[in-house]
């Protein structure tokens, strides 16, 4: 099979072959030939209102499905606008392929109109990037890009395509194989190491599982559930790992870290064995590294060898796909159980008792008030409506932490947020991507009043496609997380954090042709949320909450995670 067509059509053939059903983008001068070819193609192009949001939407699509998310932008400003989204995907290991147009090959380097060194700029923002030199190499590069994005430790891959490549005629022959000599991925964990790990697990009296985004990326939720049950181990899931083990599972001990639960942080601090599965010992989880899990030996499973012993020395390093490693480990655990279990059984019973005590002593704070809506009250109500089944995309800040604490997730790929980069303006476009990926699902975009105002242009996208996203603005009138730090660590000098002039939600949504409202009475909150969910189309619900509520527990920067501030100090200025 071989036929003559231009580069733009070849690109579309390759995207179709990769199973791309829709992608997110914004056209421009040099991508004109591509958009012309798209005009008569069955692949759906979603026109967003800003390129950064195209990348966030692609990320939301990928996070909700595990499939590669695709975005497209023109040269120069289009490409530079993708940068934040690419870094977000890189930090969270999300498979995204970005296609950018570039000025005509012979103009490259001449400061042509809308020229930017996209290949250079995005080198450190991507897992890998390409600049296409000939139309002949285009199919090879596109398939390599998809393979790299999705395999191993996933990540964003950018392909920069000059305008003349889109226009050049070439014989399209489907590519049979790709050869990336230097791209070595170890998927099967070392059998001997796995056996040693199993032994160490049964010898441990106070084991803890510390599970992260790797569980979600690998689709290892069944294996993880199996593991914690067979090995009788309590588990924490990081911000990126929420849903990796169902929030309702008896072994689930919530989220650890800076705003993690008392029980999760105490358990990590007290354990004698840390079973780290697809995690990277991020500073927001570990607090002061030297004081993190100080009594524990460490088993670290990760597909990326550069993560092992990066921040914490591993006693048993296992490089591999966490799904495959857990499958093997679960078998060995079963084989070794009879001879080893009895010895540590009393210690284990005491450990579980201790963890239950910690859980009972300090559950997450969930205050209610008759006069104003507490942010925690809002999250609890959303949790009630979701029942652990809705997709929840958030922005970054206080609302993100309260949502992570108080909303349950029965499955992976429901909880979508910018964990590593912490990019404000992520939540709404990510929810758009997730809703396109899962039209059957109830999708909440929970955003703060700060991040929402970075995303307002995308209300047009939501209206245009009639996406039934439920936008819930947790509106405290402040950049809440920055305000919290100013209050606690900068003598309450509130510098440039007050966000006044928030638009009228009903009018704003109405201007785009859908419904919106504001709620500030706690007695009306449940009804307002239910109305938003019942609405067949999109809904913008502006929820006025207590302005000065802070997120607790909190581990101050540089502190050990068992040195939590559990609630507002009495002296805190208001």
């Amino acid at each position, binding site marked *: 099979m071989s036929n003559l067509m231009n580069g733009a059509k070849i690109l579309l053939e390759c995207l179709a072959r990769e199973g791309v059903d829709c992608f997110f983008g914004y056209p421009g001068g040099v991508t004109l030939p591509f958009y012309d070819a798209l005009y008569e193609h069955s692949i759906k192009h979603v026109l967003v209102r800003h390129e950064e949001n195209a990348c966030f939407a692609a990320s939301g699509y990928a996070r909700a499905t595990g499939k590669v998310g695709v975005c497209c932008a023109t040269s120069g400003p289009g490409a530079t606008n993708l940068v934040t989204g690419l870094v977000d995907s890189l930090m969270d290991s999300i498979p995204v392929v970005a296609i950018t147009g570039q000025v005509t090959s012979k103009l490259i380097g001449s400061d042509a109109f809308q020229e930017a060194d996209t290949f250079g700029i995005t080198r450190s923002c991507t897992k890998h990037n390409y600049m296409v030199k000939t139309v002949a190499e285009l199919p090879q590069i596109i398939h390599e890009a998809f393979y790299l994005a999705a395999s191993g430790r996933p990540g964003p891959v950018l392909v920069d395509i000059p305008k003349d490549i889109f226009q050049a005629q070439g014989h399209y022959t489907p590519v049979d*194989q790709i*050869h990336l000599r*230097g791209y070595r991925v170890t998927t099967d964990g070392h059998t001997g190491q796995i056996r040693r790990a199993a032994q160490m697990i049964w010898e441990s009296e106070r084991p803890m599982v510390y599970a992260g985004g790797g569980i979600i990326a690998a689709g290892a939720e069944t294996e993880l559930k199996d593991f914690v049950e067979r090995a009788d181990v309590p588990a924490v899931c990081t911000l990126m790992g929420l849903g990796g083990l169902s929030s309702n599972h008896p072994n689930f001990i919530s989220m650890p870290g800076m705003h993690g639960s008392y029980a999760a942080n105490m358990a990590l601090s007290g354990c004698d064995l840390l079973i780290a599965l697809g995690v990277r010992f991020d500073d927001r989880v570990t607090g002061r590294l030297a004081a993190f899990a100080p009594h524990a030996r460490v088993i670290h499973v990760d597909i*990326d060898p*550069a993560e092992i012993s990066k921040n914490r020395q591993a006693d048993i390093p296992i490089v591999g796909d966490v799904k495959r490693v857990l499958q093997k480990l679960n078998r060995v655990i079963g084989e070794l159980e009879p001879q080893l279990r009895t010895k540590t059984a009393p210690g284990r019973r005491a450990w579980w008792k201790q963890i239950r005590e910690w859980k009972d002593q300090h559950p997450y704070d969930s205050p209610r008030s008759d006069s104003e809506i507490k942010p925690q009250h809002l999250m609890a109500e959303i949790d009630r409506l979701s029942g652990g089944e809705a997709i929840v995309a958030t922005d970054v800040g206080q609302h993100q932490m309260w949502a992570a604490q108080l909303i349950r997730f029965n499955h992976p790929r429901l909880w979508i947020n910018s964990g590593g980069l912490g990019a404000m303006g992520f939540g709404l476009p990510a929810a758009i991507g997730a809703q396109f990926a899962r039209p059957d699902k109830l999708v909440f975009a929970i955003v703060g009043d700060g991040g929402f105002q970075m995303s307002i242009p995308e209300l047009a996208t939501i209206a245009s496609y009639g996406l039934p996203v439920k936008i819930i603005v947790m509106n405290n009138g402040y950049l809440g997380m920055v305000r919290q730090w100013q209050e606690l660590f900068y003598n309450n000098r509130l510098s440039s954090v007050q966000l006044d002039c928030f638009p009228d939600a009903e009018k704003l949504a109405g201007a785009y042709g859908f419904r919106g409202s504001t709620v500030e009475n706690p007695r009306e909150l449940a009804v307002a949320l239910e109305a938003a969910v019942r609405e067949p189309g999109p809904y913008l619900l502006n929820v006025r909450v207590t302005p000065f509520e802070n997120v607790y527990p909190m581990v101050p920067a540089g502190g050990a995670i068992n040195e939590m501030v559990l609630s507002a100090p009495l002296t805190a200025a208001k």
Partner: protein
Amino acid sequence: MLQVISVLLENKPGALMRVTGLLTARGYNIESLTVARTLDPDLSRMSIVVDVEERLRSQVIKQMNKLVNVLQATDLTDCPAVCREMTLLRVRAPLEKRATIIKEAEIFGARVVDSSIDGFVIEATGDSEKLDEFLDVMQSYGDIDVTRSGAIAVSLELRKLRLQPPIHLAASLAEAEEEETNGVLNG
């Protein structure tokens, strides 16, 4: 004491930047860098001299090994390896000093590669410390201009090269194509 990292990488645009970018992103200076193609013209061998503390160096090397264009990155610092550098220098010297300079150069195993009324161009190779000494001596004879190649190194140990075999797309795309026919694309 400086350290040497040896990198075998694909001879492709941008590959060099990916490797050096890992060092510069952390604010490390590159003391010297040489790169040239290997017997296989699709590959290049790079020798990088740096001053990076061991734990961080091993982290950076792990990340170099992750790069798609890198086939192998190795730390030659504490391994059996031969490390050499070349220098070219131009000495301006009056006629009466020339015999002494040539004699001195011979002691260091250096040789004259060009000569003119103004002076010589001399080529010397050796380990970096020895070249430092040679340049010190030559400076005493007059004005010199120096170009150094930076160190190149070869490991004395045979290292197994682990490479990814070709990937057949038909298998990896099977799943995607199945979805296509389920109507996502055609629907």
